[in-house]
């Protein structure tokens, strides 16, 4: 019994940092609808800043407090820079484009932290005053755990006072409810957004600082916390501070007891619980339906039309050009081009649900990865030939999408995005831990192409053909009545229902088609690389897909192709040339989104129509 109490107290202490990071994320999202991937980077920088400040003051309790204060202030300042310098310029863009911008910030911060603080973990020297033992029912707990346990509710209360008792708070709440109305009342939204973003960044910085006595500042903190913070925000309910606290406690306790009861499945536990909660309570524990996230109607206002004659010729000419590439390109170039084709299909399938279906997926890698694993497992366990394995890929991925999609399409906006993420993470953990079947993190090796497709040019033609056909099919589907019904459901769900469109079924089928298309690419990817590892299912792969779609232009049919070619081409070229590729890539992405806020093609096309919005 005493063990249960002590374990519960430890869980409560663990919840503090998580809550601080998540509540900032939730506030920012509630007001400005920004899905801020860089929030984890703020947390990491908070830890580093606190370390440096504490060392400058000479350590000890005073140093720690000074460090935490400095981190909070410094991150508020950085939040100001990021908001004013970058995000403010993007509010008119499709809402998810800000996600790409914050992704670029993540890349920049990774190199920045390495350059400033060096590669080694920085452990804050023990602060004796904080590690003073307190005896609880015969167990020893450090005093600091009790500080943390108190801090969560204190911050929650402070925020509640700020939001309910100050004019600024009232404006923030009004903006969360209805942004346009606040603007119509003559409130300068821009500074409202800026101040909330600074507050969010400061909270993340404080979250990093208070974690410092328990974890050394290190370069993996950013990506380590961001997924969990999103989980907390969504489980608690977007925009709900009390919900965020509740969810942070729930998740921390879950882990504290999970490691005792199921020590080996802690990886999956978090996401499994989120999936269950979202299925049962679609808007989180304390969330409300009206804060569902980016409004799908902001995507793709123009229905697809069949390509005109002249354009068809241009496309055919382009294909002929691609067919001719192997005549003069070297083997490595051909393999990179094959990889670009594969990612183009991945991005096109994501755009199909995102742009036309209005469904956001943060877990599209699940289907790409299921395809890759489907092909690899067919080869590995069934000795399947390459064509058979390539056919197995879309079957496995499509089936996965059919099952997951059934749950996901019931939700919308960011809630749906997070449920897709949960399923992707569950799939990832299964691939990661099921050693006998998937090879675990050591993957499946020896998935090389059959002799007829082994040469770089043969594989190039194979991928070109498969990808062209698959993308053409996606285009056909979106130009068919099915596609128009899908758009109808996206733009005006109720009206579409009234007209007899089964919107949910439509979305479900579209989700599955996209899954199968992504999986087709995944199958090719397995053979291109010769091996499959759980990475193909992981969050970075999903993020890459989103970045490609948004970079190219979410509402442009060729957007995913341009995005895939730009992103993949740049990444391979730059990372081969310099170790500073992350900041270079991040810088280029920022430049691109600032110059082309509707994506590379979106801006070009938008101007032709005299601006789309």
């Amino acid at each position, binding site marked *: 019994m005493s063990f249960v109490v002590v374990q519960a107290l430890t869980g409560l202490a663990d919840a503090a940092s998580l809550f601080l990071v998540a509540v900032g994320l939730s506030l920012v999202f509630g007001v400005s609808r920004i899905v801020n991937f860089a929030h984890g980077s703020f947390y990491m920088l908070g830890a580093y800043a606190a370390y440096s400040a504490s060392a400058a003051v000479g350590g000890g309790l005073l140093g720690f407090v000074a460090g935490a204060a400095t981190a909070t202030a410094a991150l508020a300042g950085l939040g100001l820079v990021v908001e004013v310098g970058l995000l403010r310029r993007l509010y008119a863009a499709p809402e998810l484009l800000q996600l790409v911008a914050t992704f670029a910030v993540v890349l920049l911060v990774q190199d920045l932290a390495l350059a400033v603080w060096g590669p080694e973990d920085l452990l804050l020297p023990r602060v004796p005053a904080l590690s003073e033992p307190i005896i609880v029912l015969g167990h020893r707990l450090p005093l600091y755990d009790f500080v943390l346990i108190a801090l969560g509710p204190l911050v929650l209360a402070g925020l509640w006072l700020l939001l309910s008792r100050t004019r600024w708070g009232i404006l923030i709440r009004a903006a969360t409810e209805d942004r346009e109305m606040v603007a119509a009342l003559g409130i300068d939204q821009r500074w409202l957004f800026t101040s909330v973003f600074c507050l969010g960044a400061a909270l993340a910085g404080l979250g990093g600082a208070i974690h410092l006595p328990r974890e050394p500042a290190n370069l993996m903190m950013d990506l380590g916390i961001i997924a969990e913070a999103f989980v907390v925000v969504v489980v608690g309910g977007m925009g709900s501070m009390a919900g965020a606290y509740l969810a942070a406690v729930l998740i*921390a306790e879950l882990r504290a007891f999970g490691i005792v009861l199921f020590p080996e499945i802690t990886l999956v536990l978090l996401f499994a619980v989120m999936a269950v909660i979202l299925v049962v309570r679609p808007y989180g524990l304390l969330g409300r339906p009206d804060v569902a996230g980016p409004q799908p109607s902001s995507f793709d206002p123009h229905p697809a039309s069949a390509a005109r004659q002249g354009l068809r010729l241009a496309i055919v000419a382009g294909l002929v050009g691609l067919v001719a590439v192997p005549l003069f390109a070297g083997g490595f170039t051909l393999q990179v081009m094959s990889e670009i084709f594969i990612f183009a299909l991945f991005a096109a399938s994501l755009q199909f649900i995102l742009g036309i279906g209005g469904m956001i997926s943060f877990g599209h890698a699940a289907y790409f990865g299921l395809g890759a694993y489907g092909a690899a497992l067919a080869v590995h366990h069934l000795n399947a030939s390459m064509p058979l394995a390539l056919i197995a890929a879309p079957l496995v991925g499509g089936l996965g999408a059919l099952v997951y999609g059934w749950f996901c399409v019931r939700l919308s906006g960011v809630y749906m995005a997070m449920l897709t993420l949960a399923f992707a993470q569950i799939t990832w953990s299964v691939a990661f831990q099921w050693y006998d079947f998937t090879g675990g993190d*050591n993957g499946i090796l020896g998935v090389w192409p059959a002799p007829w497709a082994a040469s770089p040019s043969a594989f190039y033609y194979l991928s070109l053909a498969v990808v062209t056909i698959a993308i053409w099919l996606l285009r056909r589907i979106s130009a068919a009545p099915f596609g128009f019904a899908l758009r109808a459901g996206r733009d005006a769900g109720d009206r579409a229902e009234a007209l007899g469109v089964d919107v949910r079924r439509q979305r479900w089928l579209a989700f599955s088609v996209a899954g199968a298309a992504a999986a087709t690419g995944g199958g090719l990817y397995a053979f291109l690389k010769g091996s499959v590892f759980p990475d193909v299912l992981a969050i970075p792969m999903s993020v890459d897909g989103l970045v490609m779609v948004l970079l190219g232009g979410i509402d442009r049919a060729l957007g995913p*192709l341009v995005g895939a070619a730009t992103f993949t081409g740049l990444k391979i070229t730059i990372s081969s040339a310099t170790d500073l590729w992350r900041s270079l890539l991040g810088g280029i992405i920022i430049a691109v989104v600032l110059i082309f806020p509707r994506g590379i093609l979106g801006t070009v096309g938008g101007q032709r129509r005299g601006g789309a919005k």
Partner: protein
Amino acid sequence: MITRRDALVLALALNVAALGWPGFAARGEAAEPIRIGELNSYTTFPAFTVPYRNGWQMALDEINAAGGVLGRQIEVVSKDDGGKPADAVTVANELVSRDGAVLLFGTLLSNVGLAVADFAAQRKVPFIAAEPLTDSIVWEKGNAYTFRLRPGTYVQAAMLAEEAARLPAKRWATVAPNYEYGKSAVEAFKTLLSRARPDVEWVGEQWPALNKIDAGATVQALAALQPDAIFNVTFGTDLAKFVREGENRGLFENRVVASMLSGEPDWIDPLGAEAPEGWIVTGYPWYAIETPEHTAFRQAYMQRFQDYPRLGSVVGYTTMKAAAQAIEKAGSTDAEAIVQALRGMSMMSPLGQIEFRSVDQQSTMGTFVGTLTVQEEKPRMVDWRFGDGAAYLPDAAETAKLRASE
């Protein structure tokens, strides 16, 4: 809607993609120096890979200053593998196809090493895996083109098990990161310790997710098992968190801990004066190894980089030397000749004579086992001894069985 301009931009993007690589026509071997390809997780794990890079660069300069091999200089084309197996395959492909590398070396993560090893077998390029710890790279999934330098999980666990068997402790608990390295380390340690001490009782296991240990909760769960001793496999930030919460909660009082790799400066130095005293660890006491070959290496390294060597430095240095010696011995840059030369090749390393066993292409490089303590605010290993890898690796017959699937 697709417009003509969209199509134009796409064509442009693809053209840039196609033309972006200067390697349209492979530069090939016409150039005078011998090209060797190197890849490692420089951006993902800089703490481990930067000292490693220093190591191989020092070796490279020594080799070239001495006239290179086969009368030619050696040029190393080094790239970041991004810490991901799929990206690493692209990089390896670039090194071989475009840069004309006759041999590959490097990698840190086990799965990256495995992916490159498989690529090497497919493309028939010799590959020396420098740092991956997984033993399947030379055993279950070993192939004819892949060699590994660093002692793997099994050897490290075997040395710790030997020490652990001498302790009175009977009730053992384990804590290890939940992935292949942690799993195989625990399995090897349990098997070997139980074999030496059938009276040992395994009272429980903790499997924190890699880099995500809930340290307080894990420490309490371990304490609740009331073990006499703990076998630890966590490293990096997990180790720092585990040690701090363990000290806070008194987990290590009157308990012995046997810990993998925790004597390597690469992992233990961030803990500084808070390194846990009394732990039995495998590691690298660079400050106290006074063999002529190591002293020479350490002096040269410290003089050049104004920093002390980490284990990664030794590994990088030795791998580079092994590559050069193999080409020299082969007498050509032909892949098969290099592979033949590497099999059974013996050479001098800063840690003494090593040999790439012909049975599994694993080097016999050994490691150090000793007790962790703190001297002058720094983690130090005392009472250490060196264990030769040859003495701990399974013998030829047993290894052949492990490699049977080849």
